[in-house]
């Protein structure tokens, strides 16, 4: 071997932006190397926007009320997509490590769990914007709906939806780390549990009384109510956004705590040594990305 390169004395850093940047670089390389991964970011938001946009167009022709609330369905579906993309963006980046059997390499590196989560959240933001920006521009062209016209409210909506998406994504990642890829289905389906409760397409008052209690515990409910307030009443409800932010703070803290506990539990049962081993999703029979990659 050559004369050894002697690295400078290692310096311990409790939190390192360089390590977060290293993870972002890893995901950037991955996206750059795979056009299907990039296309997938745009494909589903585009399909949703077109489907709900045409439905909106149809309803506008037959209902004066909905015509007056122009774009509420497209707006709802695009904001719902922010929520689901926030969670999926985080979960998919996490799953990439599981599929590639790279997780043990990361867990024995100096990367701290908080840095890993920060990188996953940042990637979720990148992935969401890669999907949403072109689709929102197409929505203006196709249906005359300008999501960006929601103005400052849009920033508050995005922030709250992303925070909820990340909280769910962090918990799901912890569960997958603890239980292996057999739990992967949760990453693709868990968020849909919120769909009827968050009053995405209808006011929360539509729900039965007991469900309204649960609905108001979920930050996205405040966002979708806020969106309708802008569209129907032309006013921005800052109070709703502040309440959503408070609940999100609790959600994020609880999710990070749960993640750390799940990592500890995984270490206790020894599942981190078996990460990436293929376990068929026997309970659901779902065809997931991991099963596809295993077959490939």
């Amino acid at each position: 071997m050559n004369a050894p390169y002697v690295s400078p004395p290692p310096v311990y850093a409790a939190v390192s932006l360089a390590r977060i940047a290293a993870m972002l670089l890893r995901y950037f390389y991955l996206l750059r190397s795979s056009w299907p991964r990039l296309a997938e970011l745009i494909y589903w938001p585009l399909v949703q926007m077109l489907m709900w946009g045409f439905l909106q167009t149809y309803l506008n022709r037959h209902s004066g009320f909905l015509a007056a609330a122009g774009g509420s369905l497209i707006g709802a579906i695009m904001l719902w997509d922010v929520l689901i993309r926030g969670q999926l963006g985080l979960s998919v980046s996490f799953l990439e490590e599981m599929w590639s059997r790279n997780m043990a390499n990361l867990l024995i590196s100096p990367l701290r769990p908080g840095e890993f989560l920060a990188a996953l959240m940042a990637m979720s933001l990148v992935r969401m914007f890669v999907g949403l920006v072109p689709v929102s521009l197409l929505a203006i062209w196709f249906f005359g709906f300008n999501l960006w016209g929601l103005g400052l409210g849009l920033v508050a909506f995005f922030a709250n939806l992303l925070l909820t998406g990340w909280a769910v994504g962090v918990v799901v990642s912890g569960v997958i780390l603890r239980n292996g890829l057999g739990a992967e289905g949760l990453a693709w389906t868990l968020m849909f549990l919120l769909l009827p409760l968050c009053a995405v397409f209808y006011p929360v008052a539509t729900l039965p009384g007991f469900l309204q209690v649960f609905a108001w515990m979920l930050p996205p409910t405040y966002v979708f109510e806020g969106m309708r307030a802008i569209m129907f009443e032309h006013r921005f409800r800052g109070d709703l956004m502040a309440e959503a932010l408070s609940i999100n703070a609790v959600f994020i803290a609880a999710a990070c705590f749960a993640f750390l506990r799940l990592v500890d539990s995984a270490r206790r049962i020894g599942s981190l040594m078996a990460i990436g081993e293929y376990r068929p999703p026997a309970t659901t029979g779902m065809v997931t990305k991991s099963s596809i990659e295993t077959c490939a």
Partner: protein
Amino acid sequence: MTAMTVSDDTPAIEVEGLTKVYKALTAVAGISFAIRRGSITGLLGGNGAGKTTTIGMILGLILPTGGIIRVLGHDMAAERHLVLHRINFESPYVALPNRLTVRQNLRVFARLYGVAAARRRIDELAVDLDLADFLDREVGKLSAGQKTRVALAKALINAPEVVLLDEPTASLDPDTGDWIRTRLTAYSRSRAATILLASHNMPEVERLCDDVIMMKAGKIVDRAAPQALIDKYGRTTLEDVFLDVARGTGIAGAMVDPP
């Protein structure tokens, strides 16, 4: 090669009463050992002997039920993050992302480990481990032997003082396996680095290791230099010694209370 001076006398790895119990199964039963700096130590044992669990606990991937682990003088339960950038690990059961090229993977890990001159270190590893021809090829498109060399490059990216290897030459042809062993010996000797490797490959352990820890059913049943073990058991190869220990034959069968 430039030999480095070992200034610190504390063992590279120190384990006291290490235990791992999974419900009714005791995977590791209160083992204790110390590994001196700059040595290459083999962890030998049959399937289920507790080798991988021991390595997993040293790395922090598995939480011990009891006992103490110190690596480079740091208690791994409380100070794991103070030592992670000074150690590394390689196993055929852990992989690098297939879609990234070799260079991209090494760049990412160099940054994670805080390697100051990452480009220089990658170039150096490319020469040492003969990676230059496929440095810009995706890892998924490499042969098993090339992947092992890349995994080894990742394990050496931070010039670690302690390297843990889990069956480093499993599934490799004899020529590639021999090539890897030569590189590992050179690395350990040139940097006074400590290597702990779990292996089923007896000739590999015989050739590489200064010291061998033999495990059976979660316990250490013997420990000595390879030749000393061969002499002690009155055998001609380490493989015969391994079989005696695994089957409880020869003098291994006569041992009531293993050392």
